[in-house]
């Protein structure tokens, strides 16, 4: 089932890259797009240095969302199908989902948007955080069926073309990650937090709780409390807080880390 979601189109350079390096897979790739197996194979070749000559093209490929092969999926596996239509990163998506399908699994397995991560799948880690109607929510505890008519924004929808969202740029500058698994959730959560602060939302550590809600200045303590739903097992917290503080304050904040000489 195609779900109106085309496998991502390859450029001529990219086609040539696959023709040179993985000729046995070329037909399949042209037919159904680049799937995870192809991607991993390419990664392995890249690791071996085979790619050196084509590094620019390969880099382009690595940063592209993988179009998951729609053939991986068959309608027969749907029980209690629900038709649902919602906007994802500006594009309307219409599909039939199993009533049990979470928004997270739908994004990852049906729409090829693998930026949102499945960490715990129980609402405890925040790796699956996306914005629904502008608010941060956990896509692992949301049914896709409940998203009818809603607007979903994922990490893939934050940048404008090649221009990173300021929060993405700040995470890069401040090294707000190590392994990167929690990062899409951290960034989506932080983006929504900026609006919450602007709209005067309080937190458990806000002192002026009784005052009429107005824009809040976020201290490090406030940022830590408000980001407590996003865990980072690498412990990049100080850098994450610095990145968020920079975007929130609009003023450059010095990096807390240095590159080794």
């Amino acid at each position, binding site marked *: 089932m195609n779900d109106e979601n085309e496998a991502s189109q390859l450029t001529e350079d990219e086609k040539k890259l696959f023709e040179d390096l993985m000729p046995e897979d070329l037909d399949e790739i042209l037919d159904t797009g680049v799937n995870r197996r192809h991607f991993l194979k390419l990664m392995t070749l890249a690791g071996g240095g085979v790619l050196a000559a084509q590094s620019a093209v390969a880099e382009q490929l690595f940063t592209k969302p993988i179009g998951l092969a729609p053939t991986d999926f068959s309608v027969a596996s749907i029980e209690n199908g629900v038709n649902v239509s919602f906007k994802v990163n500006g594009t309307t998506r219409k599909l039939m989902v199993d009533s049990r399908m979470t928004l997270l699994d739908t994004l990852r397995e049906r729409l090829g948007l693998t930026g949102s991560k499945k960490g715990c799948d129980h609402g405890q880690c925040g790796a699956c955080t996306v914005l629904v109607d502008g608010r941060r929510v*956990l896509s692992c505890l949301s*049914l896709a069926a409940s998203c009818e008519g809603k607007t979903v924004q994922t990490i893939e929808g934050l940048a404008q073309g090649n221009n990173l969202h300021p929060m993405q740029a700040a995470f890069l500058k401040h090294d707000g990650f190590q392994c990167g698994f929690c990062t899409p959730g951290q960034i989506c959560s932080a983006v929504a937090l900026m609006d919450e602060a602007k709209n005067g939302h309080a937190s458990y550590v806000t002192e002026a*709780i009784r005052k009429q809600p107005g824009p809040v200045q976020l201290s490090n303590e406030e940022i*830590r409390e408000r980001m407590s739903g996003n865990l980072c097992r690498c412990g990049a917290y100080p850098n994450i807080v610095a990145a968020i503080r920079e975007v929130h304050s609009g003023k450059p904040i010095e990096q807390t880390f240095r590159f080794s000489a």
Partner: protein
Amino acid sequence: MRPFTYTRAKDATSAINQLAKNPNAKFLAGGTNLLDLMKEDVERPNELVDISELGLSEIKAITNGPQIGGVSIGGLGKNTDAANHSLIRQNYPLLTQAILAGASGQIRNMATNGGNLLQRTRCPYFYEVAMPCNKRQPNRNDGPSGCSALEGINRMHAIFGWTEKCVAVYPSDMAVALAALDAVVNVRNASGQERTISFTDFHRLPGDKPEQDTNLAHGELITAIELPKNNFAATSYYLKVRDRASYAFALVSVAAALEVNGSKIVKARIAMGGVAHKPWRALKAEKILVGKEATAANFKLAADAEMADAKPLEHNRFKVELGNRSIVLALQMALNGGKA
């Protein structure tokens, strides 16, 4: 997850009627607890009726009836909106603090006010389907029963009101504040009848029916929570003690509210979380405080009286002293408008 049919309810009446037809159907609102329990195979509904788009989310001043001067909070409003509404922040900051002490920003954006009250215990033995649990599996014919926590790892469990059938604690922070604020819960059933349940009667102690968390009947929908007018806004505080600084369930929490005339206590409301199968109103402590001077010594007298009845389990003896100190500190912070 087991298969279930899903319908989006068009209005409250049809949602209630549909649920009433099927004893194995459940309402789906925020889903933050229900879907998790379904993934764990603890909850096994064969039908979900999605009520998240029914409205019933308004927060407004009550202008007539028995709760005049109070505030009504829609059952399907989101926790985030209840916590941040100016009517709540100015008149019931205790409720704002309690909501914000619970869960995470993401979960509070999803969770509804009615759904928050219907959270199930986080007792790990309730969650683990391989372990006996009277709450999850009350009927012996369905599988193993008994209370695994009674003689298991019971550090997080109850010190008040438990029975040999169940020693679980109720997890919500919001409900602890609502208990202290004498809230009432408005519900509607399939015949279109509405009834009002006082907050202290809404949740149950386990008795010999631990499978029943509340006195809500199947098919009843929480339409609103009403808060009576009070004079606690400037002198209330929600203290939560937990293993982590944030995003953890309470070991002990205390919602404290005082009305003070000069230095004398006119009214006192104290409710505790993390200590019982329902929000625990510390009625003995409240009674001792009324008419007394608002001093640390009297706060301690009240805390001692309340905690004297505690019956700790093997691993949670610390909760008795912790509860005692938490009552005293919460009262002090309430008196000082939130400052220690």
